[in-house]
């Protein structure tokens, strides 16, 4: 990517963000929010965060070594830590350290 393309990428992210923040104030002031939009508000977050987890793992190929094992194990540790303590930062830090140790020392 050239410098200009990088700035366009960052600019588009900023623009999209501002659209999502400003649009309600421009469109829905004084009106009732359409039912379908309200529905998406409930249903979209779970689906999008699911998609983002898959996005993070897009380069993992289960057919070649290390078969996604370090990723799978580190995710398991993250989930267990989170179910146990329910401390977001602890779960993220624990899972990351676990992954770093696995790929640097084991795999």
């Amino acid at each position: 990517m050239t410098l200009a393309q990088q700035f366009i990428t960052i600019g588009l992210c900023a623009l999209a963000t501002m659209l999502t923040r400003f649009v309600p104030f421009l469109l829905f002031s004084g009106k009732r929010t359409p039912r379908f939009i309200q529905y998406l508000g409930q249903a979209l977050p779970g689906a999008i965060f699911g998609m983002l987890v898959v996005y993070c793992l897009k380069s993992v190929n289960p057919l070649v070594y290390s078969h996604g094992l370090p990723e799978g194990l580190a995710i398991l540790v993250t989930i267990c830590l989170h179910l146990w303590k329910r401390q977001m930062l602890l779960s993220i830090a624990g899972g990351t350290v676990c992954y770093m140790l696995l790929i640097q020392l084991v795999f």
Partner: protein
Amino acid sequence: MQSNGIKRKALAAAFPHTLPILTGFGFLGVAYGIHMSVSGFPFWYPMLMAMTIYGGSLEFVCVSMLLSSFAPLATFLMALLIQARHLFYGIAMLDKYRDLGWKRFYLIFGLVDESFSINCSAEVPMGVDRGWFYFFVTLLNQCYWVCAATIGGLLGSLITFDTMGLDFVMTAMFVVIFLEQWLKEKQHLSSLIGVIASVLCLMVFGKDSFLVPAMAVILCMLTLCRKPIEKAGDTL
């Protein structure tokens, strides 16, 4: 002087509410800055992105976007969908942010998850100006995030241990957010649609071009499954 008194009072009332965010943003912001730094970007990249985009999830994803080939359409759509939840923060804050003059524009600009949750739920103490209270909550939160991201960006170049695998911090973050979402929802259909549609599109279209089809499939499936999801879930 009168006006300074009002501001000082509002700042003093707002600050304690933002303390939990200081910890969270401190950690995630530094992690994000280090992540950018070890990905080869100078510290002013995370600083600039923290100031302009100001949305944690998207900023993490943006690092991967910057490292792959230029894809403006996918970037824009992805950003819209990741940030789509802000639409609902806006809807919820319509009344509270009305009639606040110029401050309104900054409040809407800085409407991240954390500022939303404080300003939506906190009771503004008696005698404290509502507009300035919201303003300082939003401003303090953004300061934490920008400072943390910048510090992370600077620290990244000082790190001497092997940082291989540090990028997993983004995966772990989304796993935790997804898990939190999973635990609080009464139906899992929408979350499952997100995961399954993405995996299928990844297999069909490959890792460099699966995002746009995945987002399209997710929106279609959510539209088609509206009845069962609304029926099963806590929706409205």
